[in-house]
């Protein structure tokens, strides 16, 4: 499965400035997304997942913070440095994003049909009637019953699951090459969640789009990911293929997460959240110089407090921990989880 690269993020840094503090939400993040593949970005709440997604689209509001460094390379261009006009031809068209909270992201005073149609009219230059016809087709496609009538509904008239489907319809209406989905299933109950995942998978197979999927639910990751990025306190702490991460995790944080998780095929469908690792995430405005996972790490050694670990890559599997070799060796052969 040799693919070509669609998006490459290099040394991305995004800081928020609030109340005189600098919140280092994204710190030196690099990764790439291959065409048609699924990359999962996992991490607990506040680890900087949404900030990463918004930085890629250059959508960090100036009043809150900014991308202070890095590149987002897409088709030979750096999305952070192209003109606004050029950027608008890519956003919503070639790269679309599903927001974490559909209830807040959909405009309350615009009909669902209008919110789909406006993307089509903007990017595909189709007439109002054609846009409406395609909007209906999209609602049908994402499994919203009675689509014709739903076109004229307002967001508050839809259920949570329906709103999520409507957002997917909006995102996919221009057949993007990359879909960034920020926790699209978190707010939904298990049945709807698996329906939405199935739908995304189906649509991905149809259109060959790549998917950057943000979640803090590991069972979802195991189900859909090709490649996994584990984020902690604004940094990538482990990256690898889904097998590498689930079969042979190196970083103590990832190991903790997987240990706390029920067996993959236990079939009970319960999904543990990433808070399963004891302790609290560090304050991103006040990070210590050493490893930011140290206060919660049971393998922490003296040098962890003052030496920041680098990202070390072995056979396409990266880890940010100075002692990972000893830790993995001491634990012996990993139990087969898959």
């Amino acid at each position, binding site marked *: 499965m040799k693919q070509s690269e669609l998006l490459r993020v290099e040394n991305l840094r995004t800081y928020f400035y609030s109340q005189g503090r600098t919140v280092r939400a994204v710190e030196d993040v690099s990764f790439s997304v291959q065409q048609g593949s699924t990359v999962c970005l996992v991490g607990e709440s506040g680890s900087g997942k949404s900030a990463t997604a918004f930085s890629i689209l250059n*959508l960090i509001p100036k009043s809150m913070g900014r991308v202070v460094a890095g590149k987002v390379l897409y088709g030979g261009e750096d999305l952070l440095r192209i003109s606004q006009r050029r950027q*608008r031809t890519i956003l919503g068209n070639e790269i*679309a994003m599903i*927001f974490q909270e559909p209830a807040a*992201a959909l*405009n*309350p005073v615009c*009909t669902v049909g209008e919110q789909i149609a406006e*993307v089509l009219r*903007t990017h595909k230059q189709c007439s109002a009637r054609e846009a409406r016809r395609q909007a209906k087709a999209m609602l049908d496609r994402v499994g919203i019953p009675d689509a014709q009538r739903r076109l004229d509904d307002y967001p508050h008239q839809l259920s949570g699951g329906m709103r999520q489907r409507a957002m997917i319809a909006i995102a996919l209406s221009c057949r993007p090459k990359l879909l960034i989905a920020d926790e699209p299933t978190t707010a939904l109950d298990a049945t709807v969640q698996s329906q939405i995942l199935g739908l995304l998978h189906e649509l991905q197979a149809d259109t060959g789009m790549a998917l950057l999927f943000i979640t803090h639910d590991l069972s979802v990751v195991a189900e859909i990911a090709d490649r996994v990025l584990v984020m902690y306190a604004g940094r990538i702490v482990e990256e690898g293929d889904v097998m590498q991460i689930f079969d042979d995790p190196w970083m103590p944080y990832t190991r903790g997460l997987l240990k706390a998780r029920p067996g993959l095929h236990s079939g009970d469908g319960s999904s543990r959240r990433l808070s399963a690792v004891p302790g609290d995430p560090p304050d991103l405005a006040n990070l210590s110089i050493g490893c930011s996972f140290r206060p919660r790490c049971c393998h922490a050694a003296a040098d962890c407090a003052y030496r920041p670990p680098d990202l070390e890559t072995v056979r396409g599997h990266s880890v940010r921990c100075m002692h990972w070799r000893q830790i993995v060796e001491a634990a012996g052969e990993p139990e087969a989880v898959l």
Partner: protein
Amino acid sequence: MPPEMPEAQRIELRAKLGLNDDIATQYLRYGEALLRGDFGQSFFSKRPVVELFMERVPNTLLLTVPAFVLSVAIGLCGGLWAALRHNSLFDRSLTTATVVMQAIPNFVVGIATILIFSLSLRLLPSGGMGTWKHFILPVITLALATCANTAHLVRTCMLEVLAQDYMRYARSKGLSPAVVVLKHGLRNAILPVLTIMGLQFGGLVAGAVVTESVFAWPGAGRLVIDAVMKRDFALLQFGILVFSAAIIFANLLVDVAYGLLDPRIRER
């Protein structure tokens, strides 16, 4: 009744106007007349108050409508621009200006413009009606009084809306800045502005009354002020009745508009 009126005439008039009856009877008589559509006559000109009032209404509309349009235009554009350029020099100047404007009473603004443009510069007439030049000062005075409020409101509401998720979402769809700001932003921000503007319609009426007096503008507001001065009660009562009805009507209109603009209200 003027104090210098002869006693005999006074007694006659009291009897004629029914002022010897007790208050309740007088009030009932007044209410009953209202229901018949009889609003009484002016004590002085002896003409029906409706007629007196209605001949002045066009002049008032000639003043208030352009002033309202101007005020909304300035308020909307100013408030919008300030919100979009939050914390810029323009934003800070506008915020300061709106606070100052809201603190200065309308008649002071009117007198100040007369002092500057009529007396010192001799550019514009200080009062009365006639040429287009007569419109400029009163319209601007009245517009200034309400536009500061509108600008302030639009700015506050728009700032709130700009921070909403749906604005960022609209941008993530690659829509043009105009569509993002006007269609997704202003349509949401205008809702609270509308409500409060409806409540402030009374302010516009009050402003019109004051402005007409300052600029000797022959409108309904000035008529009512004259009625106060002369104690022309029938006329005064009718004026207040009409103003109150206008304010209630404006609020009704706002409620209807709100229902049309906000689908979450329309539902219920």
